[in-house]
């Protein structure tokens, strides 16, 4: 493979801390190999910034292979950039052209305050999970793993929902900054599996209530979340959440 080099203009959001006002800064970055990942491109930018005595751009990342959900950038107005089913860390520079201007921003949502530059606080997601995104089973209380058969197809649907990486792109992509896709993924997984039945009603009500408290907007079914989701979580999960919620309100909490 030949290594093609491109030149880019980067417009990067810089913000010192949660309280200060941020602004875009422009940087010229030349000789970017198209084999690089997007974050490797930012590494190169940061090396150059440090060498010229400027503080590096803060951005969140860890696994760099699309599973930890840490990376989180709006790239030219799209959460995780232009590729479908792809996190920022999996996006490669072969997707860009010589001379492009690339605008890079943090997730923007009331529920995700900016910490610094491109880094946001997604603690709200943890609090939503702690409101009920689990099966209450203490260590040591489990029956044999094969005691309850689960049809392969049922398991597959649960796994589709369980694949959510908790990145928050769904919120960032939504004009209402709704967290419905994220919440519905966990609600669905546990509502589908037999293990989740006992707390089914309680769970959906508590998680939705916590979601509202965190300042996320309401869902108006535009499906932008699904389009942005790197884990291909389907909006059918939102429909299931709504059914679960209705069921809980009708039957009361169990």
């Amino acid at each position: 493979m030949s290594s093609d080099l491109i030149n880019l203009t980067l417009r990067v959001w810089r913000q010192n801390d949660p309280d200060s006002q941020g602004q875009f800064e422009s940087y010229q970055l030349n000789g970017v190999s198209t084999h690089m990942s997007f974050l490797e491109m930012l590494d190169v930018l940061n090396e150059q910034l440090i060498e010229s005595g400027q503080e590096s751009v803060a951005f969140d990342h860890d696994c760099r292979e699309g599973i930890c959900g840490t990376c989180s950038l709006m790239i030219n107005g799209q959460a995780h950039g232009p590729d479908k089913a792809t996190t920022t860390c999996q996006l490669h520079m072969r997707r860009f052209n010589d001379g492009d201007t690339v605008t890079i921003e943090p997730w923007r949502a009331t529920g995700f305050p900016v910490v610094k530059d491109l880094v946001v606080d997604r603690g709200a997601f943890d609090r939503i999970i702690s409101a009920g995104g689990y099966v209450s089973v203490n260590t040591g209380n489990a029956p044999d793993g094969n005691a309850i058969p689960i049809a392969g197809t049922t398991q597959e649907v649960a796994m589709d929902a369980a694949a959510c990486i908790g990145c928050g792109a769904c919120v960032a992509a939504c004009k209402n900054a709704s967290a419905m896709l994220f919440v519905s993924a966990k609600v669905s997984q546990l509502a589908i599996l037999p293990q989740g039945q006992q707390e089914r009603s309680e769970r959906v009500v508590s998680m939705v209530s916590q979601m509202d408290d965190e300042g996320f907007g309401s869902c108006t079914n535009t499906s932008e979340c699904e389009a942005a989701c790197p884990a291909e979580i389907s909006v059918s999960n939102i429909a299931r959440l709504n059914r679960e919620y209705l069921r809980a309100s009708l039957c009361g909490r169990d």
Partner: protein
Amino acid sequence: MVRVASETLNSRVPEGHVDQIWDKHRFNMKLVNPANKRKFSVIVVGTGLAGGSAAASLAELGYEVKSFCFQDSPRRAHSIAAQGGINAAKNYPNDGDSIWRLFYDTVKGGDYRAREANVYRLAQVSNNIIDQCVAQGVPFAREYGGTLANRSFGGAQVSRTFYSRGQTGQQLLLGAYQAMMRQVQLGKVQLYARREMLELIVVDGVARGIIVRNLVTGQLETHTADAVVMSTGGYGNVYYLSTNAKGCNVTAAWRCHKRGAYFANPCYTQIHPTCIPVSGDYQSKLTLMSESLRNDGRVWVPKNAGDSRAPAEIPDEDRDYYLERRYPSFGNLVPRDVASRAAKERCDAGFGVGDTNLAVYLDFRDAIMRVGEDAIRKKYGNLFHMYHKTTAEDPYKVPMRIFPAVHYTMGGLWVDYHLMSNLPGLFVLGEANFSDHGANRLGASALMQGLSDGYFVLPYTIGDHLATSELPTVPEDHPACVEALESAKGRIDQLLSVQGTRTVDSFHRDLGQIMWDNCGMARNKAGLESAVGQIQELREQFWQNVRVLGNGQSFNQSLEKAGRVADFLEFGELLATDALHREESCGGHFREEHQTDEGEAKRNDEKFNYVAAWEYNGVGEDSTLHKEPLSFDNVPPATRSYK
């Protein structure tokens, strides 16, 4: 010359037959009365499989738990990235598995350098782990009829690996995370995310707390407790390029080491055979292609060096399926150390493929013909997707190109049978301890070990410590706390004050290169000696010339990295020293001077049948070697053969 301590280390393995000691010992250990548990507090650093499961289980028992991680959420611990699966001795496939066989395979796979009693216990509780995870709602793969499915992993001739597509670590971790978040809701776990542990607080020889840096505000915080649990993962990033997440570090373990905890077998590192090869010098990490792929993928190189035909055009008679050729009984499923060395051997001999000639093929052509593309997609879809994203090549059509990469570290802080280090009150779990894997870990056994430690071992053994120790209250202004805080602060100030010209990353890359060239898949005396010298020199340069901008009182990723690299620069020297002293080949530690005529690892049981646990004596000072002799009463050491 290595300084050797005169006394051997006491592993506290109880007397008795290996299959009875854990049961008997659970009875013999002291218990903390249920009503008293809430009076004890435990710090758990790390929220991976080991730390997450420990924090949840301890809180369920009633202890007051504080949980720490450096990521923004505990759910992002590196365990999330594990792909292939988790072992257990369920014998659901009815293919002859048993606790004894899992025990045997693991001891043999570790090349007879693990502690038998620990491995047996691990095999024993492996089945409980699967049950627990299923009960939590972990969606393990299932057969059509609804029972749990298994796949095969290297080093075993039975099918005992449970999995959730290529995202097993993710699903297991979310199970543990959710269990922990439930305890957060119940007020039994206090969560401290975006905190980096920088110091261990030791009071009268007992571990009693930690100093952490709040990565958002830059503030240093003192936390004290009745016991401290380290579950901070492995140190593979000392090589800079590895399959580990970028934040993985040795800092937490190294800080404990500098406070007196012994570091065991640091030279036992695992180089995984199937990773996406390096593509350029901007490369920031390497991506694993799970071992599970070797269930269906066949590894080969062209028979004729320099054969430049496209892989699909090379007919079978011109392909060398070298693993199947060399190891007919295990074939593509030989253990990792063996597969990695075999790939290196072919590439060194000039048969490598791709731009750099540092790659071999992992080919799914035959499996796709046999079961169809859909069946393969169902099993490995996300891995194929990941490969496609990284390389822009479609592995359904073109074989994957793969090469070995640093992946896992078997070495770690020394622990006894209770998983307690030589520092009382300091427990070490998961990849951070020197573990149950000896000199080589079998696939799908790290997840098993992390969850075994956290769910089913520590909750018992920590009780014994708490019930039998004098643990006076340690106020935050205790001299030991103040001293640790000052030490952490001093180090940060020092890093910021150098104000040199080179970036932290540039030092890390250089260190990685030294480590890979000299302490990688093959090692020799001259290389290791030169590595020690080069590391010392690089460390000196670092402290004279590193550039860390910004300040300590704010979110500062350069500063975070600098602290970690500074520790790697000390630790790397210990790794090389350990590798130099171990004049034998075993598992992942391959000394070129010690090999059989066929190029296989040659152990020296007479001289090196021990765990090497190193005691810190100061930067640049020789460490003291403490030996824990190993005995194999149940799995008699033999030359490992997978032929």
